């Protein structure tokens, strides 16, 4: 009997035909596509966490650094009695389109929760996918305020927004000026023109007037995030005669800016950074003693918290030459949130897992602030920042006073005398 005859015989008997099978598959597909709350996966095994980071492209250095936080997380979470996580790695290639595609792919491959993606633009793209698919997304690092202002139900951020970073930065700058008995009279604001840089630039205009800062902004210079050469930017900044630099940058541009400062024989009184780049391990490695001096106002770890010491020790063991930094701390904490939520939910069901993330209340954590909990928008608004300075190849907390371990070195040592 041929296949066609079998189908005919089955149809005649009122059984399953090829046509009904195809129709059934189609109907099942439609249901799967339209029912956002239907993603239920087996509980009991490890939670499948899709970790999306810029592992290649212009932000590769930072993406790889965030990955270190992932690598050391497993044993610590186990020690804390939290369930195992099955990490699924995704590479955003430092661009939004790939971030979106990779998020879809990871969900398609079974990811039950997403973590990422260091960059605001990429995180915003992933947030849209997470929302559409009904999968919880815990942002490790991304500061653009609008991400948690969209009314998303599945997006959570344990990282301060640009406004919080700026508010803390200006407060702590004044604290440092008081501490060292000096303050710049004018600054040049240099910023990368990506989503984060533009959000910070917009925020400065709104937040700075509230703080009555002792300096005026002599010029604002925006540059492309993939810039190959920043000599014009530094020449322009130097020509203003400003005392200090206010910067929002990434890693590669922070290195380029420093090199140009040296070449153009200009050591500003201070470099005040309100973004990544200047405290990264790669920055120290590439520039050696030229890396000393910049002060970064960043979300940081509280050295006095117990879990900070555990994480620091784990990092030291795994990467002896790497300082614990923001990238490791917040990537680790995102996984901490995931494991804690999975433990409380007891299931990988997306709805229940999301609810568990929403009701997170972790007080034994690493970052500065009261702990990890999310408001109605999915934002942890208790997370705080610190001022850290590069001193002798180490990162030293110089403000706020309660977390400071040293006084700021002011002014910066001249580049030509190092």
């Amino acid at each position, binding site marked *: 009997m041929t296949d066609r005859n079998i189908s005919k015989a089955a149809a005649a008997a009122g059984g399953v035909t090829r046509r009904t099978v195809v129709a059934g598959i189609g109907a099942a597909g439609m249901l799967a596509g339209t029912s956002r709350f239907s993603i239920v996966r087996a509980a009991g095994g490890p939670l499948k966490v899709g970790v999306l980071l810029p592992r290649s492209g212009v932000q590769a250095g930072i993406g790889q650094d965030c990955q270190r936080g992932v690598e050391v997380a497993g044993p610590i979470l186990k020690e804390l009695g939290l369930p195992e996580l099955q990490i699924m790695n995704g590479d955003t290639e430092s661009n939004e389109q790939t971030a979106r595609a990779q998020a879809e792919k990871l969900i398609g491959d079974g990811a039950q929760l997403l973590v990422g993606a260091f960059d605001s633009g990429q995180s915003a793209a992933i947030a849209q996918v997470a929302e559409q698919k009904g999968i919880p997304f815990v942002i490790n690092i991304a500061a653009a305020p609008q991400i948690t202002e969209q009314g998303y139900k599945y997006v959570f951020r344990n990282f301060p927004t640009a406004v919080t970073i700026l508010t803390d930065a200006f407060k702590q700058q004044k604290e440092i000026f008081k501490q060292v008995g000096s303050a710049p009279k004018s600054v040049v604001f240099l910023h990368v023109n990506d989503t984060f840089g533009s959000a910070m630039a917009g925020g400065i205009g709104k937040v700075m007037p509230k703080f009555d800062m002792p300096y005026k902004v002599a010029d604002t210079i*925006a540059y492309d995030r993939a810039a*190959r050469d920043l000599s014009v930017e530094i*020449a322009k900044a130097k020509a203003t005669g400003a005392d200090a630099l206010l910067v929002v940058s990434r890693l590669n541009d922070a290195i380029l800016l420093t090199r140009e400062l040296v070449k153009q024989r200009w050591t500003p009184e201070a470099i005040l950074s309100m973004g990544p780049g200047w405290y990264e391990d790669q920055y120290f490695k590439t520039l050696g003693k030229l890396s000393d001096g910049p002060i970064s106002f960043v979300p940081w770890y509280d050295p006095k918290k117990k879990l900070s010491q555990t994480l620091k020790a784990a990092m030291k063991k795994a990467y002896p030459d790497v300082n614990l930094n923001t990238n490791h701390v917040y990537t680790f904490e995102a996984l901490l949130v995931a494991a804690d939520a999975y433990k409380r939910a007891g299931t990988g069901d997306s709805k229940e897992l999301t609810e568990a993330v929403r009701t997170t209340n972790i007080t034994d954590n690493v970052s500065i602030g009261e702990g990890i909990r999310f408001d109605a928008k999915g934002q942890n608004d208790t997370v705080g920042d610190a001022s850290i300075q590069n001193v002798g190849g180490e990162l030293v907390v110089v403000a706020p006073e309660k977390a400071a371990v040293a006084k700021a070195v002011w002014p910066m040592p001249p580049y030509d005398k190092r």
Partner: protein
Amino acid sequence: MPVELYLNVAVSGLLTGLIYGLSALGLSVIFGVIRIVNFAHGEIMVMGMFATLVLFRHLGIDPLYCVPIVAAALFAFGYLLQDLVVRRIVHLPDYMQFLLMAAIAVMIVSLCLMIFGPDAQGVQVSYAYDSFQIGPLLVDKVRVYAGVAALVVSGLLFAFFRYTDTGKAIRACGDNQTGALVVGLNVRRLFALTFGIGTACLGAAGAILVLLIDVHPYLGPSYTLLAFIIVIIGGLGSLPGALLGGLLIGFSEALAGLVFQPSMKSAVSFGLLILVLLLRPQGLMGKISR
């Protein structure tokens, strides 16, 4: 803004433009003779940059001394690539040629990623942070050395095409391939030589460029695009045009960054490209093909 600031930026832009010009020469040489648009242009230059990085790190050779070594290595690579692969698809439609070159580009990126990883890496020479002070001018020493090296390599290339028999034979192939065959020139060998010379230019440009910027596997596409802009502005297939285009782009990008906003640099390059296409489609030094 003070005049010396404009002078500083203009000089720096011109020096950068010389290196841009040298890298674009590679594209122009290959297109001018073989009529292949090399979409792997930037990636081949990145290969040159990585090769220089390896020579610097493991043998301590200064990138400027690496120029002939890397150029020779990439000459061999280009020669073999043309003779073994590209030659076999020259008769196929343009889009198939484009795809082949794009595929080669992807393979180079993947290979560089496997060997060197995704991080940006640079060389640290003893004069990396030095600068020349000439009156009010403060010129980056590395950029001066790089600009001079680019000028020397370009001069050698011009001399080769103008004064040597092989150079003249290659130009003859570019002008009239059938005619070249009729007079008994070994076109296959000359094409392979041309591709090799084009990739050698990229090797030289890569060795020089690594002094100015850190290299990573994904650097290629932006330089491919930049080279296309330069050769279209200068005139496709014109060697002096490629150098002029490079100088023009380097200079205008630098001044645009100063006068407008640095983030406007690329917009100015593309603006120039549109202007040239509208007013002189054959490029500043290109010839109208009849």
